[in-house]
């Protein structure tokens, strides 16, 4: 009776990745993205997202070759233990670091905007309790978490542009069609591709998926949905603040939300909307951490990931608190190396795919020779 609830369905996959993809871009990367691409940001998003989608596509092709086995179990059969374990260690660190990075961004945001007197560690700790509980509960819980809040979050995110419609400087909109700085668009696409390419970790979760043939379909739809949500929020932001101000604001989406006035009842709605938004961040952090723990569990040939969940959450919290001193350092870290590091990690499955393909071709030809 329980088995049918243990698998991740294509709908769950679509819903989780829709939330996963727009959340960081809208929350924290909007300024950097607009700073690079200016009015051509939508082109950057299109190129970057579909370019980034190639990484999960190669992961998918690799995973499809052994659909019932976990990559961490069979990876060493492809490239050998000596290369496999260092590469896997890089991936574990990458996902752990990504989780810690988003956590740090979230913590800085909360402390700066809403809880100026609350210590950083307290904010991180309470949030990490939620993350540890979700990660301990397993992959199904994380995906179902996303499923439950999907419609609520979508409605929340789509209501924001509706409410600020009256404030838009519509004359500026023509610039989206005639102002293209291709160098900036290229840099923007590079940034977006690194974020969309992170979906390549489906490789590690593949045996959990119930209808594996539909995986790429779900990811493509999730990409389309997230692009729609990002553009529906990003374009009004630029039309209100202009590209220069948007790129210099730390949290442009927050400023956009603050344009909403809900009449006399509540002066502004930003804490409520941010509470909804927080759930998407929570899902993203939990998923990154879960993947890191899963790889570690399989690498050590452990049966259950649960014993590692609390330890790894504490490790993530530690990295998050100690990785940089200030928010400015965090921005510098993102601009210098983090994107490249992500792209390299995302490309690791391609190496496995190529080696596996060559080995299977060689294996086939040697078999044919032997037969002949």
């Amino acid at each position, binding site marked *: *009776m329980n088995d*049918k609830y243990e698998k991740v369905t294509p709908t769950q996959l679509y819903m989780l990745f829709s939330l996963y993809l727009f959340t960081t871009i809208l929350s924290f990367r909007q300024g950097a993205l607009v700073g690079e691409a200016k009015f051509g940001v939508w082109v950057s998003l299109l190129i970057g997202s579909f370019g980034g989608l190639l990484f999960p596509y190669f992961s998918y092709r690799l995973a499809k070759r052994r659909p019932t086995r976990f990559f961490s179990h069979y990876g060493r059969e492809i490239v050998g233990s000596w290369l496999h374990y260092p590469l896997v260690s890089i991936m574990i660190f990458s996902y752990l670091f990504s989780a810690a990075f988003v956590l740090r961004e979230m913590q800085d945001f909360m402390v700066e905007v*809403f*809880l100026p007197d609350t210590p950083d560690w*307290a904010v991180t700790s*309470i949030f990490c309790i*939620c993350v540890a509980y979700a990660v301990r509960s397993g992959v199904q819980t994380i995906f179902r*978490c996303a499923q*439950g809040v999907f419609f609520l979050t979508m409605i929340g995110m789509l209501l924001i542009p509706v409410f600020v419609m009256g404030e838009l400087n519509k004359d500026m909109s023509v610039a989206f069609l005639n102002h293209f700085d291709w160098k900036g668009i290229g840099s923007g696409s590079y940034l977006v591709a690194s974020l969309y390419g992170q979906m390549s970790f489906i490789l590690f979760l593949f045996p959990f998926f119930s209808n594996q043939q539909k995986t790429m379909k779900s990811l493509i739809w999730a990409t389309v949905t997230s692009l729609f949500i990002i553009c529906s929020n990003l374009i009004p932001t630029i039309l209100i603040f202009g590209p220069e101000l948007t790129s210099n604001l730390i949290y442009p989406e927050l400023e956009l939300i603050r344009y909403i006035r809900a009449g006399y009842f509540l*002066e502004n709605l930003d804490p409520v909307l941010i509470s909804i938004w927080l759930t998407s961040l929570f899902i993203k952090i939990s998923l990154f951490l879960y993947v890191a723990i899963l790889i570690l569990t399989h690498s050590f040939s452990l049966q259950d990931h649960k014993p590692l969940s609390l330890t790894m959450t504490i490790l993530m919290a530690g990295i998050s608190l100690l990785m940089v001193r200030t928010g400015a350092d965090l921005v510098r870290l993102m601009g210098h190396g983090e994107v490249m590091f992500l792209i390299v990690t995302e490309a690791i499955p391609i190496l496995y795919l190529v080696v596996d393909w060559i080995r299977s071709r060689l294996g086939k030809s040697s078999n044919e020779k032997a037969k002949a």
Partner: protein
Amino acid sequence: MDRKWGKRSGGRAGQHTDDMDPIHHQLSWLKERLANCSDLVIHTFESRFHQKCALVYVAGLTDQKNIQEEVLRAIFSLDASTAEEFRASIFERKQLPISNYAVIPLEAGPSSVVEGRVLLVIENEQRAIRFNLPFVKGRAIDEPISEATVRGPREAFIESADDNLSLIRKRLKTPEFKTETMQIGTYTQTKVMILYIQGLCDNELIEMVRTVLSQIKIDGVLGSSYLEEHLDSSPFSPFPQVQYTERPDVVSAALLEGRLAIIVDGSPMVLVVPVTLFMLLQSAEDYYQRYVAGTWIRWIRYLFVFISLLLPSFYIAITTFHPEMIPSKLLITITASREVVPFPALVEAFIMEISFEALREAAVRIPKSIGQAVSIIGALIIGTAAVQAGIVSAAMVIIVSFTGIASFIIPHFDLGLAVRFLRFPIMILAGIFGLFGIACGLILLYIHLINLRSMGIPYLTPVTPFVVSDLKDTLIRAPWWFMRKRPYHENEKLNKWRQPKKEASKQGEEEEEIRD
């Protein structure tokens, strides 16, 4: 005393004479097993063939008038010419002109007697006859107290399992409606019945419930809650994982949805499994009102669940951390009322909420005659004196009162209790981290609800896992003509259609026309 009935002697166990040697052995064994039972009656008599006989029963549990009128008359009117024939016609041919009797070994006699059966013992016979002549005083079928409706039926379960079963059987006139009976409780031997409709209820569920119930080893079962806690998958969860109801129509509806009911003798509450959060937020009245009203009231209920859980926390968070959210005029009013209060908003809310919980508990426990007085004192102290004395603010009184009213809207009492209980940790989080704390509290609660299952069914079905077709009875209360498919039916072998598919019904109509 009629001569043809033969010689009779008897009375209470203590007064019984031991002058009947051949039956003495059997009776002394029975008396030994049932020693110190002052309500035990051993009625000894001699048959027409001078065989020593005895009727053994518990005075309060059996219909003594019927014993006289039916059992004794039947024994003495039996058409037999010899003692052997008399014995054979009772035990072998079962010719006693009385319904519902069984031949049992004498060893099973004591348990039958304490269950309220009448035992006939005959000399030199290792078998006995068991008559079913119950006489248990109980209350009559009454109106539901905790689940009242305006338009729905007004019958509620009582303490008798058989009467409760008849109330359901009356509504489900189908041979597919099955009942299984078992006894649970070493001392209470409580009758427990499992009810389901074959073809609608998943066999795995039936087997699971059967296994759980058969594994219960307990001295006594005095209410359905004794079994409820055994059926919980997550015993530490504050949320109820089994539904209980006192309405036979609710149980019938649940059985038609392919769920399973458990009747426990002695309890007016019937258990229903599996259950989801959204089922617990449905009221019987939703289905008797027009669907527009049903849907509207259901939305109000959902809204007030959140208000009941979060309103004090929001108040604490907004006044403490996010005053910029409140319009300036309202902020001035709230600040003015809080000016004289010496406590932070969190402490103030705690004082009020705990006082309110105490008042509510007191109102339930105290006798009705002084209940009014306590209500007045509570209202005066909390409503007026506390504000005037500057201990709490008027705004907080409004918040707490509103939260109190909201918590009564939840139809299932245990779910209401869970929400009342969970309000406190979320208030603490709101007091420490503001809205961020509330969001974290809700995320934790949400993960817990996602992990929770009732008999294997996820608690948040149909929202997650997402079942679009079941939203028609969750998000809204769809009209009956629209609810053609049974909810939560994934097993292909089960009949999932409540109303025939359109094609099928059209085909049926065409066939009828041809026949005409």
